[in-house]
């Protein structure tokens, strides 16, 4: 028997419903989890208000939270299992709550986060964030001060300077110290010994013994002299010898931290681009000197890689050429421990050179922050205390970050020293000592039109690293004018 034909109205109704369902499905946002409204206390929050002087979270509604990474470190495949485990374990600490870990690579993390926030789909917790990552989203962070106060969170366990690092005049307390990355000179002992050079000094203030036996200050003039001796072409000639072939260099003497022109300058002196009035671009003289040194090192004295060499995956396969063993000395932050094992087992740490008699060792610091758009600020703050507290040891080891809690630093370096592939003896004391020379103000401090300014700086960085024969004075003036025009717009 033939099936009974459907009534035309039924067919139409079905078609309307199908269309409506199709459109609704297409238009609806991704499935979201709604936290239950069961008022479970936090892990220590049996009482609604903790007794005076003791930490305790006020009761909060458990929630499904999202942790967004990586405006700072955190994307490396070796770090992600730890981060995922920390996220998964939150539900055991705070029953009913959950934390989903979302990793977006650093290069696109800012754009993606901006899109999510603007789309009303922002995460709850964001981190680890560098100072620059926080500055890139000025106005988006939750002021933690009321939550710190309500829970009696103990900030005295941190260096007051570290606490102040995250105090914003406009946004309040946007972070709690988590870790710090002092910078040092990383050097390959073998490359020094093979040409009979003394190793760089490990202690700040110590002098350096030149090949002729003279003792000189450990400053950038000295660095240049020995870096040229350590720069070698394919014929084995160093950069001081006649017949040196700069187009076929196989080993470079020195590598500055070139991720950001501000950071590159900060090794020569602390500062930032914002003048006293907050509107005028002022380039610190030390930065100008650093940039000229950098340019000369690439194109005239040849002891620093050009942009072409730096971008060549065969010379620099993993982000920083020191890792490939092609550079004798490199200034960089502690977070480079993530890849430094590739450099072999003959590297060690030395002091940052001085400029004009003063040492500046720029500092990177990371923390976790909560977006003010979060729908669950109490649950998010509870999760933040867990990340910065119980889970912090695991994360700090994964990130290679020196704990912001001074009490934990020795054990951190002890564990870090046992990393597979690291030399048996590394002078981690240099890292601890470098903190005293941290740049203040920090080079990543907020400035007007933060992201636009970064782009201009990066364009000039790219130009200088790929173009020989530039007049650096004129370039620096142009850079200043271009940034000023952007700030004025």
């Amino acid at each position, binding site marked *: 028997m033939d099936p009974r034909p459907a009534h035309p109205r039924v067919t139409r109704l079905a078609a309307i419903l199908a269309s409506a369902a199709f459109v609704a499905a297409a238009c609806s946002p991704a499935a979201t989890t709604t936290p239950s409204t069961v008022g479970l206390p936090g892990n220590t929050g049996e009482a609604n208000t903790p007794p005076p002087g003791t930490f305790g979270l006020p009761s909060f509604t458990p929630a499904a939270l999202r942790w967004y990474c990586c405006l700072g470190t955190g994307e490396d495949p070796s770090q992600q299992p730890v981060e995922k485990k920390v996220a998964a374990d939150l539900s055991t600490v705070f029953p009913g709550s959950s934390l989903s870990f979302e990793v977006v690579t650093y290069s696109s993390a800012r754009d993606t986060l901006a899109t999510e926030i603007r789309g009303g789909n922002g995460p709850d917790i964001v981190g680890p964030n560098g100072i620059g990552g926080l500055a890139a989203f000025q106005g988006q962070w939750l002021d933690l001060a009321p939550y710190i106060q309500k829970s009696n969170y103990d900030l005295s366990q941190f260096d007051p300077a570290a606490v102040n690092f995250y105090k914003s005049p406009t946004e309040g307390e946007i972070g709690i110290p988590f870790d710090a990355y002092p910078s040092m000179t990383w050097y390959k002992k073998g490359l020094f010994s093979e040409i009979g050079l003394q190793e760089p000094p490990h202690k700040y203030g110590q002098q350096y013994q030149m090949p002729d036996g003279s003792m000189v200050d450990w400053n950038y003039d000295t660095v240049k002299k020995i870096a040229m001796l350590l720069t070698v072409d394919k014929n084995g000639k160093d950069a001081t010898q006649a017949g040196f072939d700069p187009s076929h260099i196989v080993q470079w003497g020195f590598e500055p931290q070139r991720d950001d022109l501000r950071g590159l300058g900060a090794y020569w002196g602390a500062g930032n681009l914002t003048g006293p009035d907050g509107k005028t671009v002022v380039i610190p003289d030390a930065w100008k000197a650093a940039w000229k040194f950098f340019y000369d090192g690439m194109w005239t004295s040849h002891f620093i890689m050009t942009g072409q060499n730096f971008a060549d*995956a065969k010379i620099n396969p993993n982000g920083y050429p020191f890792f490939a063993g092609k550079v004798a000395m490199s200034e960089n932050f502690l977070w480079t421990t993530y890849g430094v094992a590739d450099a072999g087992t003959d590297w060690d740490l030395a002091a940052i050179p001085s400029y004009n008699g003063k040492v500046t060792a720029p500092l990177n610091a990371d923390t976790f922050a909560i977006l003010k758009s979060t729908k669950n600020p109490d649950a998010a703050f509870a999760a933040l205390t867990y990340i910065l507290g119980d889970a912090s040891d695991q994360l700090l080891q994964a990130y290679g970050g020196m704990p912001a809690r001074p009490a934990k630093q020795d054990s951190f370096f002890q564990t870090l020293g046992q990393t597979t592939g690291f030399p048996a003896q590394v002078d981690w004391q240099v890292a601890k000592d470098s903190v005293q020379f941290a740049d203040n103000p920090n080079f990543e401090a907020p400035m007007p039109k933060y992201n636009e300014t970064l782009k201009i700086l990066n364009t000039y960085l*790219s130009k200088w690293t790929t173009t020989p024969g530039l007049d650096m004075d004129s370039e620096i003036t142009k850079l200043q004018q271009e940034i000023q025009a952007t700030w004025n717009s």
Partner: protein
Amino acid sequence: MNQLPGATAALPRVRLRRLLRRSSRPMSPLARREARQGLLFISPWIVGFLAFTLFPMVATLAFTFLNITLAQETPLRFVGLDNYVRMLGDQHVWQSLGVTIRFAILWLPTSIIVPFVVALGLNSKYLRGAGIMRTLFFLPYVVPFVAGVLVWEQMLTDDGWINTFLNLIGVANPPSWLFDAGWIYPALVFIGIWGIGAGIVINLAGLRGIPTELYEAARIDGAGAWATLRNVTIPMMSPIIFYTLILGVVDVLQYFLVPLVLKNGTGEPAGSTNFYNLNLYQTFFTFQEMSYGATLAWFLFAITLFVTLVLFVLARGRVFYAGER
């Protein structure tokens, strides 16, 4: 026979009146039902178009007169033409437009001529294995573009395959394709040529549509290969060439993906890949200036529309349409 001007003008009016009369006639129940069902079936598309194309377009136009940013630190307000005034004085807008135009000057002729020439070759009766050749030329087009760009990146690095080959044939200092602001555009053209499969297919279809009688007539008239190309093939292919030109202009003004993937959107080297559309994207998502980004988007739309209209005006009398009266 010449017609009176009044008579020629009257004809369309008569037709229009007839049409109007026909359309004002009441529809039969069957026609109405069919119309309703037709509308019902296309309603998902209509809703999608209204919600995801038309409404956002209108909204972005409204945004250009507001001060929307991601942080929205100042209250939302009407700013009139401020965003347009700012755009006119923004050197990054003009720099990025300059970058786009420089690349377009190199890329547009290439994107029109190369597929045409390859299609001519593939259409030749003397070519053996034309089917395989067509497949091979089209193959890159179906490879995901991002993957293709990454492969090209490896080929074009300073010691990549291309420079290794150039070294082998005696070029001592081959170009630094990806790191020299002067050589980056030829490199981008190479990458673009890799994906011209669709252009070849379109040209090939056009060539196949040219009546063979025209070639026979040209041969009888004693035309050689060049004369045949100039007087038969190119005129007959002019609609296809014009079509690829229009699409090419639109594509090049929206050029975005390759610099984003190849240089991570940094504009390297030295800002030479900071294309207009990349600047627009960054204004929205990196600089988080939604209203200003919308202004840049509308400016791009205006430029595209203007260039396209100019091309249509210039094409009058130069493009041959066989069906045109």
